[in-house]
Every structure is written in C-alpha cells, then in structure tokens.
C-alpha cells in the first residue's frame, strides 16, 4: 500500500462513483452450507467471503483441551482464483496473521466458558478479493456463529476505513487498498460499542486516527443493521 499520484477522488467522488463515507452494495445470506452448524455468505461490492462454523464439538488431541473453557479456532484462507494473479493454495504469512486477528476479534463475543473442553471451529474462505477481505470475512463469520446457535454476547461487525488523496474514506475496494495513504480494519461488538480488532498501516496523525476510528464505528452501525436483517430474514421465509 503506497501513495499514488493518481487521482482517486474526482469532484468529491471516488473512482467507483461513491462518496467518501459510502459503503459498497452489500449482500448477506445465512445458512447456505447444510453440513455446517452455521454458515453465511457476505459480499461487499466485488469482495465475496463465505464462512462456516463447525461446533461446539469435541476437541482432540486431548492436550489441546482447556478444562474450564472452550476454545475458538479460526482459519482464514483465500481461494487461488480469488485474485488476479493466481494465489498458490494454502496458508501464506498474511493468511496466518489474519486468521489470528480474526479469531481475537470474535473471541470476546463468545461465551466460551459454556463449552469446556470443546472447540468452535470457524472457517473463512475469500472467494473473490476486491479489498477489505478480512472485515468481510469477519462479518460472515459472525453471522455463521449466530446461525450455529453459538451463545454470544453480541454479533461482531467489521469494516475498513482509510485515507486517500488526503480524504478519509470508508470500505476500501482493491484499488483504493493499494493506493491509499493509510488503511485501517476495525471490528467491534456493535451493541456494546467495544472494539475487538484494530489494525492500521500508513501514515496518519493522531487526530486523523481518531477520526478514522469514529468513522469506522458509524459504518459498523450500518453494517450491523444488515446483519440483523440477514438473520431475521432467514426465519421469515416460509
């Protein structure tokens, strides 16, 4: 991610026609994989992520078990065909790090102590990448957890924000991701207003940083409404 001389904002609009604080078209669908305890598909514009949850289930090997609490395991993976230059299958360093931060973003929401010795396994697959893949994945994973009936204190909602051509924007697409002065991923517990994931790289002043965090919070509120709808929708259709 580096700055660019290219104009990414023309007449106050982004290259794809959006306003700085406008999200891309978002679709969310729950319960799409019947062999999983819970599942969901989310897309933000051209970024598609599917998540599925297996569990709570017995955890083996035994030495991995925690006698007084369950554990959460998360695997974030990008499909080889998800990006322009085919990505070799299997975990790379970026996927390993994202798997970790995604897990830590969702752990605070789950009542793991209700399932000692068990594990809840979350799998996130990015089917097509056009920026903000980890937050799209986390939004899907949170829906999948709710769909699976995993007891949680809140959903987890995530979004990306950043700075491009000096302007602060929301929901970066692939091109913006690569050409921004800064980009930030935020995940939070929407009704408790607590942040569970925060990553930023770029160059921002402290004031810009706080503005970005607040901008992310506002966008998460909108995304949460969509998550709510997707879950309630599933049980309306008969």
């Amino acid at each position, binding site marked *: 991610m580096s700055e660019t001389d290219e104009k990414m904002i023309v007449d106050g609009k982004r290259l794809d026609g959006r306003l700085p604080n406008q999200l891309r078209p978002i679709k969310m669908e729950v319960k799409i994989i019947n062999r999983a305890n819970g599942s969901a598909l989310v897309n933000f514009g051209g970024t598609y992520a599917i998540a599925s949850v297996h569990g709570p289930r017995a955890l083996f090997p035994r030495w991995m078990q925690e006698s007084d609490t369950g554990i959460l395991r998360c695997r974030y993976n990008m499909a080889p065909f998800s990006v322009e230059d085919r990505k070799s299958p299997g975990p790379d360093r970026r996927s*390993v790090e994202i798997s970790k931060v995604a897990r830590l973003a969702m752990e605070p929401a789950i009542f793991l102590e209700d399932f000692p010795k068990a594990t809840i396994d979350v799998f996130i697959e990015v089917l097509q990448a056009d920026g903000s893949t980890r937050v799209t994945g986390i939004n899907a994973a949170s829906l999948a957890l709710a769909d699976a009936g995993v007891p949680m204190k809140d959903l987890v909602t995530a979004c990306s924000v950043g700075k491009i051509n000096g302007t602060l924007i929301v929901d970066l697409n692939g091109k913006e991701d690569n050409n921004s002065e800064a980009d930030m991923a935020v995940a939070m517990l929407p009704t408790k207003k*607590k942040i569970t994931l925060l990553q930023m790289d770029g160059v921002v002043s402290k004031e810009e*940083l706080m503005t970005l965090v607040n901008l992310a*919070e506002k966008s998460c509120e909108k995304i949460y409404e969509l998550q709510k709808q997707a879950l309630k929708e599933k049980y309306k259709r008969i």
Partner: protein
Amino acid sequence: MEKYALELIEKGKRIDERKFEEIRPLTIKKGMIEKAEGSASVKLGETEVIVGVKLNVGEPYPDAKDEGVLIVNAEFTPLASPDFESGPPGEDAVELARVVDRGLRESKCIELKKLCIVPGEKVWIAFVDIHIINHQGNLLDAAALASLAALLNAKIPKLDGENVLRKEFEGQLPVVFKPINITVGKVGEKFLVDPSFEEESILSSKLSVCVRDDENICALQKQGNGELNIEDIEKMVDIAILKSKEIRKLVE
C-alpha cells in the same frame, strides 16, 4: 504469579515495582555480528532479541521497479522459551514479523529508491532477521527496536560487477526516520507500558503503536482477546507517542 500480578495492579503497583509508564532497563548494542551487514541486540529487562541485517542483490517487485526490497522474518527459537516449538514460524512469530515490517515500511524509514542498482533488474534486498533469545515479555517492542538499530548500523557492501564484496562498504544504509514501536497494555481500567511476561498473561488487550519522529502513527495492531473503548484507544496512543520520544533518544 499471574493472580498476584493482577492484585498488585489493582492496587496501583507492578510486580517489579515499576511505574505504569516505566519501561524495564534497556540496553542496545550494535555491530556485534561481523558477518552481517548490520546487527543489533536489545535487552529489555530480561527479554533479549538479536537482529541481523543481510543485504543481497535481487530483482525488484514488478510494481516498484526502482526500489529496493525489505523482508522481515522472525524466529521464535525454542531456546528462548519452553513455549516455543521447533519448526516453521507459528502465528505469533508471523504476526510479530509482519507488524515490525509494517512499522518500518509504512514509516518509509529506509529510502528504498536509493537501494536501486539497475532499475527493473537489480536492487538491494535488505533481509531483517529477528531472533528471539529470551522471552520475558514484550517481544514486539524489543524486536522492532533491535530491527531499527540493526538497520541504522547496516552498511551497503561494494559491488564489483556481479560480485558482492562483503568486506568493503559503500556507505550506510539510508535510514531517514526512526519509527518506534510502543506496546500499551490494558488491565482493568489501567494502562501499562512494556508488559513483562507475567503481566502479558493477565492483560485483556494490548495496543501496539508505531510512532514516527514527526509523531505520525505508521502502524497499529491491537492484540489480545479483550475489548477496547474508543476512549481507551486515544489514551493508549497518547501514551505511546510520549514514550516513543524517550526511546528514540536511546537509539542513535
């Protein structure tokens, strides 16, 4: 030990009697690995990290044809802690390397354009290899500091046609900023700097902030499975900015 540490913190004290905004005794040494083009070791309390910088000639990235390349890797060798296992880097080692990398890269502390030899064909690749020697907490700050010190210590070897003359040098690696990484931990409602190993297991969250000389923030990474309020984030960033100034003076 952890329970005791928690009790103390609630009373406003830390196990090793430090103040909440105090870091452990810090020692930085440079240049002790002669075979590396740059090297440094950092001792932060009992946490010890050694970083070596090696420069090789290679191809640039296709989207940055006139820039040198920076590659950061971290090894959590089993000798440093009973919790580390042999084998390829686990998620913690990968995360640490990537966070240190982002701090160095986004701050633009190395003038990568000056590492270009033949645009599109040959550039210097700077390998920053982080080796954890002893894990007594706050590996990230120690590793980031050692990496910066090693880069400041690094010299570019002379090139004779295709050969790299490792014992002769052309000059220092062009480092123009000193980004400093400060990790702030949250326990209950309190914030502390430079968590020790015992403190790390009782922290609910940590925020690692990479601050550049001009007080801009170049990288942020929340760690741990706790929750943070927006107000917490602001406080932690403020603490990091303040602390970074103090540490920066110790790395010349």
